[in-house]
């Protein structure tokens, strides 16, 4: 297949995906629309988390960075009467700034030590929200966070959180923008350097790559988008508290990312979509839901150690075995490590 054909197919695929995202609110039940809004927010969260992990460092602070964005945007909009439209990007900026400051102590560590260090730093931030009732609201957090409004000339002001379809499209647009920026960054020279640091950091350093700086860049960029996700969450539900950004939520992010796979850009998206839909589908089982969810996780990790993104290759391999003999290399799908 020629390169131009590939590009055409890719654009067609994206157009189909965009059409699906645009059509979904008119197909699903109203309550499922709320589920989709949170799903879109979580997609930004996991993709931004993967951006941090490209350098090979896994952190436990990402959900707290989401919280930094949420708290900053909420306080700016509620206490300082700043426009929500300005407060939301500033939420992302605040998360990026905190990440920048934290990168000085944190990137003195690597691997497991970085993981633990990031957890400790995250807990310190979260407990600060818990301890100070002004301005963070203490354990109860912040309530009555203003929602974004849109005033069009000659029309009434629209509250974008109600009906939920307004917020769905707002979130979808912001998500598309965030994903596009992260994708472009990953495909750029910066992304290649981040990958190089992941696989051969000593070698990269020996040829003049400033490893610390690039790790910091990935951490700051990922945190910025996590902050945006947090701001979107805060202005939709209108309330946040420290528990919302605790270790339990971070474990969900880890599971979504690992189950989806981190080799490709689409991996964590597949993970969060598949597991969230499954989780919702098992709602009827009430307290047994986590157990069912857990069994599915174990099965996935056992039979698909490279994540759900490796499923097509696995299925085609199975077909080859059943139909006798492997197909030609040109027919075989690329393994899940191409960064697509």
């Amino acid at each position, binding site marked *: 297949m020629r390169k131009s054909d590939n590009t055409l197919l890719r654009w067609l695929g994206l157009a189909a995906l965009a059409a699906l995202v645009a059509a979904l609110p008119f197909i699903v*039940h*109203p*309550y499922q629309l709320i589920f989709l809004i949170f799903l879109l927010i979580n997609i930004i969260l996991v993709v931004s988390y993967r951006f941090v992990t490209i350098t090979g460092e896994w952190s436990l602070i990402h959900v707290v960075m989401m919280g930094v964005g949420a708290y900053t945007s909420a306080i700016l909009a509620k206490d300082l009467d700043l426009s929500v439209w300005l407060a939301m990007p500033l939420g992302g900026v605040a998360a990026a700034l905190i990440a920048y400051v934290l990168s000085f102590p944190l990137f003195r560590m690597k691997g497991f030590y970085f993981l633990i260090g990031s957890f400790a730093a995250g807990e310190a931030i979260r407990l600060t929200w818990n301890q100070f009732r002004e301005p963070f609201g203490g354990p109860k957090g912040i309530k009555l966070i203003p929602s974004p409004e849109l005033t069009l000339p000659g029309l009434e002001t629209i509250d974008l959180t109600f009906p939920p379809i307004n917020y769905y499209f707002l979130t979808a647009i912001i998500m598309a923008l965030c994903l596009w920026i992260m994708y472009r960054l990953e495909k750029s020279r910066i992304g290649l350097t981040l990958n190089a640091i992941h696989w051969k950091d000593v070698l990269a350093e020996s040829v003049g790559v400033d490893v610390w700086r690039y790790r910091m860049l990935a951490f700051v960029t990922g945190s910025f988008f996590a902050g945006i996700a947090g701001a979107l969450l805060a202005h939709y*539900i209108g309330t*946040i508290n420290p*528990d919302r950004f605790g270790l339990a939520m971070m474990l969900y992010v880890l599971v979504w990312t690992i189950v989806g796979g981190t080799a490709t850009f689409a991996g964590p998206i597949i993970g969060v979509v598949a597991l969230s839909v499954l989780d919702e589908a098992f709602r009827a089982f*009430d307290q047994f839901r986590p157990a069912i969810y857990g069994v599915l996780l174990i099965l996935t990790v056992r039979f698909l150690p490279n994540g759900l993104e490796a499923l097509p290759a696995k299925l085609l391999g199975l077909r080859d075995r059943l139909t006798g003999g492997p197909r030609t290399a040109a027919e075989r799908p690329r393994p899940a490590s191409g960064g697509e």
Partner: protein
Amino acid sequence: MKGLGVNRRQFLGGTAAGLALAGSTKLTRRAFAADKVVRIGFLAPLTGEVAAWGLPGLYGCQIWAEQVNAAGGVNINGEPHRIEFSSYDDEYLADKALQGAQKLVLEDDVKFIMMLGGDPWPGVQPFANRAKMLVSTLLPSDLSPDTPYLIAPAEVHPIYNVTGVEWLAEQRPELKTVAMCAQEDALGLPSIATYRAAFEAAGIDIVYDKFFDISTTDFAPIMTAMLASNPDIICLDTAYPDFVNLLTEQAFLQGFKGQMISCTCDNYQQIVDKTSPEFMEGFVFQFPDFDDPAMQQEQINFSNPKAFYETYQSRYPGTWSAVSWEYAAIMEQWKNAAEKAGSVEPLDVLEAMTEGGKGQHVFGPATWWGEELFGIDNALVGDWPVVAIRDGKAQIQEFRSIPAWWDKHKDLLLKHMSDLGQLWDQRT
């Protein structure tokens, strides 16, 4: 299947039996298809750390519904309506609660939603207001002038705790000092404020009074610090069930010989087993067993509490707790109001329930109250039982009036609530 001790044949047989049972359930449902059904939403944590204050409530509601449906259901203008519950696990998260509330209202068409309240409520509030949906909470601190459709008809946590302190002070006037602790959260803060007011009103000195972090797992140092103040009374405030369990165990292990008091003492039998009947003798808390002789009196507004308790205990042994009966008690009030209104529509039921500012609380006649604390009179308050463990079994000692205490000491309570930022206009 070896690890499970089940062979293939047993597994297939079990599966077939399960399918047959599922099929028969479907037939039973069809047989009832002619009846009218009222759906009630149960939106509370069913998994996670706070599930202990959600799941037993759902069990209780299911038993209550079985008993009510067997007796003919809810009678609306002469027509019987069967009660069915739709549950949604809010995981004690505001976003999940919002999602759940929308599902219950828009998909399941529920006429009333019961919540635990607390952190998830602010996520639901705007939607509940828009949908004019009647919602109940177990935590009246969720109430404010902006919550016209939210009611707290079962308990006025933590205000009823004053009855336990007042009773204790009268029974044991020799007790002069108290040490207390609570987790610093939406439950602990108003509860500490209430206990401070109650002990001050009773003339008991508070010699230790500290919050601990909700993520605490080691309670030995906390109990050591409390005992170092040499108190006559240890007060565990409204600690979560696991915390009460661990703190009590620590008090026992560290040789405390004095009086203990707490808001709840869920699964107290386990605590008695872990400590000793002698240690737990006289432990004061606020939630009775429903087989208590005092619960069989005429003023109790709950159908056949003893049968309810016995069914619960046989079906879910060892899980009876403060919330096992509370949601069911709310349903009892809802049923009475719906029958009185001749309608199951939320606003009709709310009007019937609050008519004249008086109502029937589970423990007897009560008043809709709360303006000064919550900014709205949507909390039902009346008598509340003081419970103490006697010979290893919880026994109601007395019903005490919350309004009577409030009339005498409300300035104290308002002061302490205000100090901790717990008045409705202080809650951000």
